[in-house]
């Protein structure tokens, strides 16, 4: 079950989270009361994450969201362990894509979070690897993954055309703040019965020719079945 949203990425990482922070929160927070008996095993998950060198903020966010949504105590620990496993996978992908020093970069916590959310939403690991390359860079990757996950949710993105599209988009002058527009463009193309490989190919070719969102929309509209 997906119980996270993409929205508060910026607000989340304000202070460092430690297992003690989590222990304190479990003791004092009223909405954590149902999990009182689970407190030691929950803290254990956070300690395991710390010993693996993972940032604890995404896990802590997951805990708070689970508590806010009143997830049953029996489900909470498996959910946290699932998140821990995903974070390990994402860190490996980020390190393979951007190098070992990626963990010291300013966008690492956000990269971990969007990567984990992507995998949780069913976005393929191979797709995430395509986006995690030095030519794209961590900053653009953080803006690119959420729209790609939404697009994949509408209709599965084929990996080979996705790779060309991602390269063309990251090299284009389109600012990362406008990447979200591709979600609704992709939806309109899908509703217009254009196959995903063709949609991505049209988008890629327009971007490579120096075109932008306006030209992509017009070419997709031309290709859509009336």
């Amino acid at each position: 079950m997906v119980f996270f949203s993409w929205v508060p990425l910026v607000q989340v990482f304000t202070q460092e989270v430690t297992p003690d922070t989590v222990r304190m929160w479990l003791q004092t927070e009223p909405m954590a009361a149902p999990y009182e008996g689970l407190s030691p095993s929950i803290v254990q998950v956070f300690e395991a994450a710390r010993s693996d060198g993972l940032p604890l903020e995404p896990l802590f966010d997951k805990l708070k969201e689970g508590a806010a949504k009143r997830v049953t105590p029996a489900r909470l620990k498996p959910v946290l362990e699932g998140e821990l496993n995903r974070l390990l996978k994402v860190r490996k992908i980020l390190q393979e894509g951007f190098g070992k020093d990626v963990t010291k970069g300013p966008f690492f916590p956000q990269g971990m979070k969007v990567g984990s959310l992507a995998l949780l939403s069913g976005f393929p690991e191979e797709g995430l690897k395509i986006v995690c390359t030095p030519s794209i860079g961590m900053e653009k990757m953080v803006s690119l993954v959420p729209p790609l996950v939404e697009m994949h949710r509408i209709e599965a993105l084929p990996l080979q055309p996705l790779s060309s599209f991602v390269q063309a988009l990251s090299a284009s002058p389109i600012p990362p703040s406008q990447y979200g527009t591709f979600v609704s463009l992709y939806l309109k193309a899908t509703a217009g019965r254009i196959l995903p490989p063709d949609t991505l190919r049209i988008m890629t070719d327009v971007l490579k020719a120096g075109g932008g969102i306006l030209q992509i929309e017009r070419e997709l509209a031309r290709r859509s079945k009336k």
Partner: protein
Amino acid sequence: MNRTKKVGRKVLFIGIWLTVFFGPSLSWSDVRVGMEGALEKRTDGKRVYLPQGWVDVSVSRFVSESFSLFGDFSAKGGWDTGMEEIPYDVSGILSGSLRGESFFAALEGGLRGTRTYDTPRQLEAYLSSNLSYIMTESSLFLKPFLQTVRGPIDSTTVALEGGMEKLFGEGWMGSLSFRPALTYYSDGSSELTLEPKLTFDWFPSVPFTANIRGGWNRRLLENSDVREESVFGSIEMIWYPTSHVILQLDTTVEKVYRALTATDKGLTLNSELELRVGLPYSKGSSELILGGGYEWREYSEDPQAEDRWFVRVGIEWQL
């Protein structure tokens, strides 16, 4: 041979030439078959059933990064309990597009044959083009159009639409265009249509999109008398509310405020809804289609409004 027939033959010749030239270079890419049952209440009050089936074939070939070829072939037919003959709608479209750093050029040709309850038999052929000059966040376009219709009323239409498109804000696009069109009828008469149009598209970062169009349409007879004058507004929305569900709503309102006969004047509301639901375990290759539409028309000098509605349920497979 009159001018309409001559132009019609030329368009047919170009269509055949395009098919022969482009056909072999296309590869089959998407074949869909479907069937549906529809119940329709027509404006004359009759209720009819329409069990129908269709085959849609789409082909595409990306010859290079700047040159693409596309083809769409569709055949739909079945029964209409309000007709003695079998209704059909068969069409084929071929198009090619060429893009460069600051231009886009496309050429499209299509043929369509239809037989419906209100059109005994009709064949349409058209050629359309799109020539655009592209800047960073805007473009200028010209769309020449040529169409010939063979049916109860033979006609040939030439049109040239010109306009500009602009991207503004995040996810908003606007377009302003003007389309004059001249139609020649086989009885020797002709008609000029003028249509300025304003369009807005909204593409937010969520799975939803909206298109709002509005315009004015004026049809003039040869002697410059106004045959009809109207304003229209239209909104189309596409929404992906949850997994494997696409919802489309298209609504148009048109007000005819000047017409040759008083009974042509009036207000029309037309709305259509379509819901496509991907069936489980089919990996998106089959969809359930639920649709409906309602059209309401009121004439200025006739207190009795007329309406038409339909509901349809269908299924489509992607082979």
